[in-house]
């Protein structure tokens, strides 16, 4: 993934009072994309793409610069979950299971590399095969008949500090979309019998063909007048967004050859 060519867009919160208008920038590489949240239409044609620059500092403090590189930088979705079990129990289960809501259907897991570093932390690199189970419309939009997606995961388990950090990103379909996520398991600060899981995700759309395809698809199937729909919620450093958008739209119609 080359951040310089990525227009990262935050996913809009799915709320009625939702988002403001978005203005599209000048096209530099043919097309741009912005996220459509699919709520009520606005007639304002101008859109702004919220370009989120990659940051190197982490929202959640912790080691692992390599994990940050794998994960990307901007948090656009995050959640916290508390398990009613101690950290050791949760970690054992986490290594054995794949209860990850961002990856809906993991069908295969392989360990590519595993080692203990000089600090006694276990590093694992895994390859996950997932079946996204995309609806046929979305698959048609993506222009792929493939449903099997591969994801690469790097995890670090520190048994002394009691911290497990997991970063994953898709390594196929990267020309269309990039989903990176980071999970951190730590003991609950107030109750050692509990464990906190913090999840972050970044979804990046590299919208050249996707945006064009969707625009033409929408124009053809929904209306002859493509409406510019956008709802946008201002992104603040602590804003939490629920990932909703599954379609991107371009400001000007462009048809794929």
């Amino acid at each position, binding site marked *: 993934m080359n951040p310089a060519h990525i227009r990262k867009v935050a996913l809009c919160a799915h709320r009625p009072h939702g988002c403001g208008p978005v203005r599209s920038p000048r096209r530099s590489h043919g097309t741009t994309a912005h996220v459509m949240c699919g709520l009520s239409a606005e007639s304002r044609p101008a859109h702004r793409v919220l370009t989120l620059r990659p940051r190197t500092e982490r929202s959640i403090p912790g080691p692992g610069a390599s994990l940050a590189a794998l994960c990307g930088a901007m948090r656009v979705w995050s959640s916290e979950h508390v398990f009613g079990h101690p950290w050791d129990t949760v970690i054992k289960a986490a290594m054995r299971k794949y209860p990850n809501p961002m990856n809906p259907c993991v069908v*295969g897991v*392989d360990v590519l590399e595993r080692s*203990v570093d000089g600090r006694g932390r276990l590093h694992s690199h895994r390859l996950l095969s997932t079946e996204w189970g995309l609806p046929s419309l979305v698959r048609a939009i993506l222009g792929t008949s493939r449903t099997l997606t591969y994801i690469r995961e790097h995890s670090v388990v520190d048994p002394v500090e009691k911290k497990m950090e997991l970063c994953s990103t898709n390594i196929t379909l990267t020309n269309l979309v990039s989903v990176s996520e980071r999970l951190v398991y730590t003991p609950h600060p107030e109750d050692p019998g509990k464990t906190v899981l913090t999840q972050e995700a970044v979804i990046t759309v590299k919208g050249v063909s996707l945006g064009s395809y969707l625009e033409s698809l929408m124009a053809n199937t929904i209306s002859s007048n493509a409406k510019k729909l956008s709802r946008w919620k201002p992104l603040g450093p602590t804003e939490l967004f629920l990932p909703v958008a599954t379609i991107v739209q371009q400001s000007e119609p462009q048809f794929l050859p």
Partner: protein
Amino acid sequence: MTSESAATAADVDAMNSVGEACTDMKREYDQCFNRWFAEKFLKGDGSGDPCTDLFKRYQQCVQKAIKEKEIPIEGLEFMGHGKEKPESSS
């Protein structure tokens, strides 16, 4: 969506490998690893990984499958066995 594996909370060691031929090796390795992980590593004894041989065999199979399926894995040195494995070097 395939129905073979449960949607979200399936056991990793009951899952398949990316290479169909590697699944048995994978499960054998996973069982060994899970035991070591729970009984040794998490208790502070990270040395002496007993699963090295199993892992080597499994890894070779997986490498082959990845090449055959042209899965774009980059940045790992396992293909060339260039990475040191501290847990087996002592």
